[in-house]
């Protein structure tokens, strides 16, 4: 005898007869759309820099609201300029921004969410795919959040939006899956097709980006060589770099761009091939006659401290990088305030700071810059006495370094002659 079973009751017990809750699918699509917006903003900011110029970037949890970061002081800027913002940097100028495939992934998730929310009777085969697909941005977000916190020491607001959207799509996918009808799934066989659609949404924009992106002008690495690279004045700090390729960086210890550049160089695999020497070039009118206004007040005093430190100059330099805001604030009040901070942190330098010998040495550092007729800006990098163009010291660093380290400094592959 066949038991008297109410099929409707059975389905109710195991899941909705209409399939996954529409609210969950709509939520999934909305979170995916949020991810599209944030990753599009990030992609836009990255791609704008392919013109090798400086641009203000979005750094707001509500894109379009709040001021854009033009000074390069935000976490968004630090992350954008870090080696982690793109991949294949050595192969193509700037690399492929990680936000671009992210845009494709979120677009795909949005498409899936929208497609499913317009239908009825969505089964667990469909929602299971949503969960699996949502795991990709979640895993990437976890990795990038860790890199941000541990390697870069900052979190960018736009990235936080992407992390949130990733988590949102996963939660919504699980919610949809729990509410979806159980039983024989008719859609599991379509996963390969969905996978291919996802791949297309990621790969097509990436390929278009690669085809459209500007080629690197080959002429740029063939000009601006140092006229007098020799260290006649004994002012170069020789305590950085473990490689064998001679390189000279010109920097100001209180220049935020120099700090970021130094970090990028340290994080770059190619940077480890350099035998790096440093020439101090403080953009502070206290000692630098080439600037009418102090761009980084206090940097003359800090530079003296770096020179006074001798073999431990890198310790003082790293400390100065880490305390730039305090030192700049003190510098705005006067050089004595900076001396006081330096003496407090490095008491042994008290017998050297401000004395004629170190001031003369710092002056010779500036004169080295004059003898080479360098532009009045920092940072600058010279590899084998050949200048890495200033525009290539951020996103293009790995690409240009790779070409320069190949031997003759000429660029190959992605060039325009």
């Amino acid at each position, binding site marked *: 005898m066949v038991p008297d079973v109410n099929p409707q009751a059975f389905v109710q017990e195991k899941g909705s007869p209409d399939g996954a809750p529409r609210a969950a699918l709509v939520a999934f699509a909305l979170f995916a759309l949020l991810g599209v917006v944030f990753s*599009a903003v990030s*992609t*836009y900011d990255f*791609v*704008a820099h*392919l*013109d*090798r*110029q400086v641009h203000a970037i979005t750094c707001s949890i509500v894109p379009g609201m709040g001021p854009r970061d033009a000074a390069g002081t935000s976490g968004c800027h630090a992350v954008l300029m870090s080696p982690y913002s793109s991949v294949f940097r050595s192969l193509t100028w700037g690399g492929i921004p990680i936000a*671009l495939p992210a*845009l*494709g992934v979120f*677009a*795909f998730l*949005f*498409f899936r969410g*929208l*497609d499913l929310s*317009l*239908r009825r*009777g*969505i*089964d667990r085969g*469909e929602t299971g795919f949503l969960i699996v697909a949502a795991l990709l941005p979640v895993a990437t977000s976890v990795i990038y959040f860790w890199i941000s916190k541990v390697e870069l020491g900052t979190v960018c607001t736009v990235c936080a939006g992407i992390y949130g959207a990733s988590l949102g799509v996963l939660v919504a996918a699980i919610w949809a899956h729990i509410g979806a009808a159980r039983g024989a799934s*008719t*859609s599991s066989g*379509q996963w390969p*097709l969905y996978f291919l*659609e996802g791949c*297309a*949404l990621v790969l*097509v*924009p990436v390929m*278009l*980006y690669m085809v*459209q*992106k*500007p080629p690197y*002008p080959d002429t740029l690495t063939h000009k601006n060589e140092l006229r007098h690279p020799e260290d*006649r*004045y004994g002012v170069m700090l020789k305590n950085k770099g473990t490689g064998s390729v001679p390189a000279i960086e010109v920097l100001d210890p209180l220049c935020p761009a120099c700090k970021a550049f130094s970090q990028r160089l340290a994080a770059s695999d190619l940077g480890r091939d350099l035998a790096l020497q440093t020439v101090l070039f403080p953009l502070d009118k206290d*000692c630098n*006659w*080439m600037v009418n206004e102090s761009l980084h007040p206090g940097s003359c005093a800090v530079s003296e401290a770096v020179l006074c430190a001798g073999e431990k100059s890198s310790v003082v330099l790293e400390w100065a990088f880490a305390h730039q805001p305090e030192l700049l604030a003190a510098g705005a009040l006067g050089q004595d305030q900076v001396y006081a901070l330096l003496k407090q942190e490095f008491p042994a330098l008290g017998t050297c700071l401000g*004395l*004629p*010998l170190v*001031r*003369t040495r710092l*002056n*010779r550092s*500036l004169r080295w*810059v*004059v003898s*080479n*007729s*360098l*532009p*009045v*800006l920092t940072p600058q990098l010279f590899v084998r006495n050949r200048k890495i163009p200033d525009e290539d010291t951020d996103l293009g660093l790995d690409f240009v370094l790779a070409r320069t380290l190949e031997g003759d400094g000429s660029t190959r592959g992605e060039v325009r002659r």
Partner: protein
Amino acid sequence: MRLDKLHFLLALGTLLGVALPATLWTRASATRLTESLNKVSDVATASAANEGYCSGNLKQILRRVLTSCGLIQGGGSRGCQPLQARQMAAMSGGDFNSLFAPLAQRAAIVQFDQDKADLDEAAMGLLEKTFADQRGASYFLVVSRASPEGSVEHNRDLSRHRADAVLEHIKGKFNDPELEQEVGLLWLGEEFAQLDQEFCQWKRSRTEGACTTADLNRSAFIAWIDCRL
């Protein structure tokens, strides 16, 4: 789920929605890059200082001191003797001194005892401080003198020894590899461009007691010259 026309329309629309902006943004960057490559950089180039006081006359004298007295050309003789100084200046002593008036904040007067060419502590301190304050200057001028007591010949030698004492102290203290190209010596003895009372207001190594013109001229006038030749 049945894959129908809606599915593929949505897929195509999404693909266009992603590909189009990526293409437009990238092409816009490429266009801006092309435009920027034709622009000339407006960043200043590092250079030595060239202050407003670098008049034609001052530069001419400086150039003559540096060339005639064996500095720029690296000749063996160093320093200009009084006769040469008078010839190269081709002007009165008062006019010669007034050329240096704009250097009041950059110059100092290192004073000596009568008939002596030894630097005392204060003189060494002032010399080191002044030399360390090079900034963007390219040339360090030492103009030594003697007060009128004694013979002309003796005072020529005395002022030369005073200039040499200044140079030797700088050499020993600063170990500057470019010293030969930087320092110009001019010894005037008592014959030309004696300093008048106005220079008592300038930075001097002896600030105690009265300041007489005799005291002022037992000296070496030192200054970094912020001029490019």
